[in-house]
């Protein structure tokens, strides 16, 4: 159960962030300069690799109870953020995440910026747009993969899930050469929010010294319980108006770069 839950949580989190990063890189390449955008993409991936190399051993060296308390707390805060936004979107209180709309917004912004040659890069705007997109979207995934992997003593499985998701999204992006608007991103974010909240609860409480009834089997109750509670919240806060009536651009109006 834990291994499959670990794989699903990391895969879904990584896939949704990869879809968002792909949208930004596509916008930078389409509107500006492909070579600069791809250079920014690889520079971003390199930065994330350096962060993983630096944080990986540090995370692994923390004693398990301390790690679970610290990581559980952070995962629970992250999970509640994801879940809160997912519930707001599902209940019609917030615009659904729309990659096609975001792509158009990024395209307009990219086309109006003046060209600038800097540090050997033909188009600095395209480079920084792609770089920031990859690093910002990737940072949370790095954290999720590292913490899930280290807590479950299975970093290779977490890394495999992350790599599989990125590869799948990258291949799909190359194939369609357009934002992956058909990916059920909002539903995937809902599931990731449930998983992060459930694992954050479990590990955080264990790290703080609590003993769950049934030990690890408690997760079999916690995950569906969090899911049912989230669905109840959607029903409780559901708005009668169509969420499509709210422009997708408002989704970024409250600093909503993540999740």
């Amino acid at each position, binding site marked *: 159960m834990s291994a499959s839950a670990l794989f699903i949580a990391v895969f879904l989190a990584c896939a949704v962030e990869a879809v968002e990063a792909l949208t930004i890189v596509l916008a930078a390449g389409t509107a500006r300069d492909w070579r600069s955008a791809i250079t920014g993409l690889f520079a971003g991936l390199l930065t994330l690799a350096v962060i993983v190399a630096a944080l990986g051993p540090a995370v692994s060296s923390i004693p398990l109870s301390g790690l679970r308390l610290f990581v559980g707390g*952070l995962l629970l805060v992250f999970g509640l953020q994801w879940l*809160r936004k997912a519930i707001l979107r599902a209940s019609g209180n917030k615009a659904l995440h729309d990659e096609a709309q975001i792509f158009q917004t990024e395209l307009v912004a990219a086309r109006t910026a003046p060209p600038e040659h800097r540090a050997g890069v033909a188009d600095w705007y395209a480079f920084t747009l792609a770089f920031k997109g990859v690093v910002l979207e990737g940072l949370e995934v790095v954290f999720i993969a590292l913490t899930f992997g280290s807590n479950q003593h299975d970093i290779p499985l977490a890394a495999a899930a992350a790599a599989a998701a990125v590869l799948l999204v990258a291949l799909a992006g190359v194939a369609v050469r357009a934002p992956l608007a058909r990916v059920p991103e909002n539903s995937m974010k809902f599931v990731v929010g449930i998983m992060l909240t459930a694992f954050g609860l479990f590990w955080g*409480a264990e790290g*703080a010294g609590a003993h769950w009834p049934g030990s690890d089997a408690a997760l079999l109750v916690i995950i569906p319980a969090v899911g049912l509670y989230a669905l109840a919240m959607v029903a409780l806060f559901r*708005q009668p108006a169509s969420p499509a009536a709210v422009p997708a651009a408002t989704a970024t109006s409250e600093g909503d770069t*993540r999740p």
Partner: protein
Amino acid sequence: MTARIRAFGAFWYDFVIGDDWRVAAGVTVAFTLTYLLSRTTGIATWWIAPLAVVTLLPLSIRRAARPTTT
């Protein structure tokens, strides 16, 4: 330089704390309480964090939904 430090701090605040600082504060209080009660008493403490989630989530959603509902 000050602007860069401020931007760096704002990035990490947004990354870790997010849109609602009360959620992060509530989670911290819940785990601190779990830790203290687990160390000093023999009572079961596993229910504290779930109770915090059950309380914090609807309050945070209600705060976020309020501008569009009024």
